[in-house]
């Protein structure tokens, strides 16, 4: 394996592509490479190249979650999502951009079952152990997207700038399809540079997890109200961060036998989130 430390973004994007991966905090990528879940013969360390810090509504994608959780200028939903994510050390290491690209915690996927998300035909979780899995968008793959931060950004209507485009954060994600199993596809060499997070009138993030700290969301509910419009997004309930059209949309959930309880939790947390706004 090779590790490159390019001195400019141009050099970095040129180095990225086939067989190489960009590394910032490494909290996700390093274990995935070691486990053979991500193939990379070259790692490109871009930690010093990705913008870091806050400038008005702009957040550098290299800003760590630890920096954001104490940042008074950002919306409450984002701050709380950062505060309740992962562990202190992981928040110290992990960048907000990298957090958006993290893979599911589905044990079948992590243990390299030849599942749908890995390019196979079946979702092993659906017929197996799936209590932490999806209640929406789970027809082909029942994995749950683990990012608290992504749900918050989707609810906040945030957008992102990459080395090649600007797009709403919500548009980064797509359910896996027969043609493409990647739920957050970036172009080869594309790096997330910064986020633009509009300031809502009010926002909130509520998280149900199996421990008081340091667990992925069973259900995370982010809600943001801006000029009378409320957006709700959920973490941990679908293969991607899930934008909920309305509280009633929970009636359309398609839980698995062992994930029905997540609908109950989501109902309670959505109601509480709306009350809190």
């Amino acid at each position, binding site marked *: 394996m090779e590790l490159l430390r390019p001195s400019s973004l141009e050099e970095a994007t040129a180095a990225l592509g086939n067989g190489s991966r960009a590394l910032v905090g490494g909290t996700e990528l390093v274990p995935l490479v070691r486990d053979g879940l991500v193939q990379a013969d070259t790692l490109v360390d871009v930690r010093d190249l990705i913008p870091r810090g806050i400038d008005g509504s702009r957040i550098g994608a290299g800003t760590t979650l630890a920096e954001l959780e104490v940042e008074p200028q950002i919306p409450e939903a984002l701050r709380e999502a950062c505060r309740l994510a992962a562990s202190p050390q992981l928040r110290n290491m992990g960048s907000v951009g990298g957090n958006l690209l993290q893979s599911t915690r589905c*044990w079948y996927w992590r243990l390299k079952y030849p599942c749908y998300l890995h390019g196979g035909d079946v979702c092993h979780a659906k017929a197996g*152990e799936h*209590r932490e899995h999806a209640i929406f968008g789970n027809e082909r793959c029942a994995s749950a997207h683990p990012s608290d931060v992504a749900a918050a950004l989707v609810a906040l209507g945030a957008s992102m700038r990459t080395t090649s485009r600007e797009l709403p954060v919500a548009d980064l994600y797509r359910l896996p399809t027969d043609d493409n199993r990647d739920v957050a596809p970036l172009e080869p060499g594309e790096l997330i540079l910064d986020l633009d997070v509009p300031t809502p009138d009010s926002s909130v993030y509520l998280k*149900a997890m*199996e*421990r008081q700290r340091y667990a*992925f969301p069973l259900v995370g509910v982010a809600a943001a109200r801006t000029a009378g419009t409320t957006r709700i997004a959920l973490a941990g309930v679908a293969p991607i961060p899930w934008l909920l059209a309305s509280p009633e949309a929970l009636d359309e959930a398609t839980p698995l036998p062992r994930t029905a309880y997540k609908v*109950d939790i989501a109902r*309670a947390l959505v109601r509480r989130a709306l009350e809190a706004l």
Partner: protein
Amino acid sequence: MARLIKTEKEVEGRYTEQWIVVDEDALDQWPEGPLEVVGREVPRIDGHDRARGLAGYTADVRLPGLLQAAVLRSPHARARVKSIDLSPALAADGVRAAVGPDDIEGLTDEPAYMGAAVAAVAADTFGAARAAIDLIDVEWEELEPLLDPDEAVKQGSLLDESVTYERGDFERGLAEADAVVEAEYRTQVVLHNSLETHQSIAHWEDGGLTIYISTQYIWGVRAAVAKQTGLPEDKVRVICLAMGGGFGSKNSPGDYTPIAIELAKRTGQPVRCALTRREENVAAGNRNATIQRITAAARADGTLTALGGEFVNAIGFSGWSSSTEGPMQMLYACENMRTVKHSAKLNLPPMAAFRAPGFVEGTFGLECLLDELAAKLDIDPLELRRRNYADSDRMDERPFSSKQLAECYRRAEPHWQRRNEVRASSSGPWKRGVGLASQIWYGGGGPPSYAWVRVGSNGHAQVVTAMQDIGTGSRTAMAQIAAEELGIPVDHVHVSLGDSARGPYATLSAGSSTIPSMGPATRSAAADAKRQILEIAAQRFNLEERVLDLKGGKIVSADGGAWELTEITGLLEDAQILGNGARGPNPTGMRVLTFGVQVAEVAVDVETGEVRVDKIVAIHDVGRVINALGASSQVEGGIIQGLGHTLSEERLVDPHTGRVLTQSLDAYKLPTIADVPEIVTDLVDVPDPHLTNLGAKGLGEPPIIPVAAAVANAIRDATGADVRSLPISREEMLKALREAEAKKRVPVGTASS
């Protein structure tokens, strides 16, 4: 004088008879209550070394030429190795040796659980060894695994014969009852997850074999390795200086030790075989799951007329069948009893003892069922327990050597009385309640166990014994006991342990047995040294020996004389006083047990299923307390492990393939500091008058036993929901709440039983 006796030895509820040599235990017990050093709060004497990262764990041992092993473990729950070719691994860079199923007993070509060891390699680095494992060419024939415990019982796939225990007339007891409750309780598989993974280093040297190993039983490893290798026992040296947790899972050499031994033999170099975290969570043992279909019956006044049930231990492919039915048989004075235990043998990873095996699981079922009964009878749950208090052991009518459970109940009263106040503090979706559960367990320790105490010319003492301190603080306890007996400060005592070549035989550190076994031996050795010092002092000062004593670092006489201890020990220059001590026998014809009660306060968010444990009061009778500080740490640690078992921990297995899914610590959720309730420790601290020269029992296991039941009973108090399956996840809690709601809606008069 040495005395040969035949005695009953108990480890985790399993009794064996054996011949032992003991010293007459002529010492009177010290008076009750805290003494000069014993019973006080003493920070652990090796605390700084451990905190600074200076303590040498097996994981830290570095030897010249040390090779690293990696193990090929079966990815299948049941398979046959049709062919295996080690040569690609042997040809890989840095690989020094490889072994397969034909080479040693610990490797198999018919793996019967995921994680069974099939082959292993030794290489210059762990990375090279790991990579070489992937090169081994194996052709597997996958076979259908047996995963369902009830199905296993039906098919007769049993690890042990089923055991039926009866006393009185169970059916008559049911017929005499005014109320009967029946329920099915289930407990899950939990994983020990000691932070130092299972590992050993094998080093052939000096015509023998040295094993460095993270173990709870130095001498057991020595005996097992001697047997495996055919070496005489004195050619096997076992070393464990500091140890990163075991909780019952490190009582034997495992599969990794024979692998390291064979690879070291083949390479002529020392070899480490260390499990990775993921191997640890597959192949290092577990607390087996249980199914408990149990019944309790009582008269209207609360007198139990019958207890019984069917207990299924879902054990995995090997291990042993712990006494899940034990609490039911032993805790209460119930005359009519019938228990049946089945030991299902499954294609799942082996069970290993885990902190009070069986009793943790069985207490959850029994103590929850008792609260269901109390509700049906409309009797206060604490009162129900008092009304069925056992004054003697109901298994064979032996008297207890001591039992302070009534005192524990008395001390629990004010905490229990808080329940109206706690319930009233419910607000919105958060419902609050209080629950309690009793604890019964072994923990008396026993012989054989030996210690030496030597006192040098500076008046400082050294306790020498080849025991292990697995993190409980037993090293510090030995220093306290020696200091107390010798009348010197605890920082004048050094404890040398952890090396079979440098100290006498010591017990295993399991079954809450280290302090009750080793403590009396250490006291007896210190007393021997003291006697010798006083003999010499009597000659030196022309006094009668009986007027002399050791106190406050001095030799004192009854008439007020006082001399520095060094005035005697200093005479000997570099020579030393050497005291020899042995653990005396257990009291004949008596049952030595530990008791306790815990009271839990919980809050439940009935909309999201979140359970928060706010407070646990732990009141236990473990005889004399040696270190009040370390004891409270043991209690807290047991409760926190118990809370993981109760709320968040569960090993998950794919129901089709039998593969373990929760191998890493993101998926398997140990409690964090943020999950810890307020814990109040209250130890009765009355010495057991019949037990040894100390009157001390063990404390490692008792505190974990009642946690799950106390919490589940508090949840019922708060919400009316019966939680009968562990862990109480959000899913489980919401399900129980839904069922409680449905039960409430059943019109009066149509409810069954």
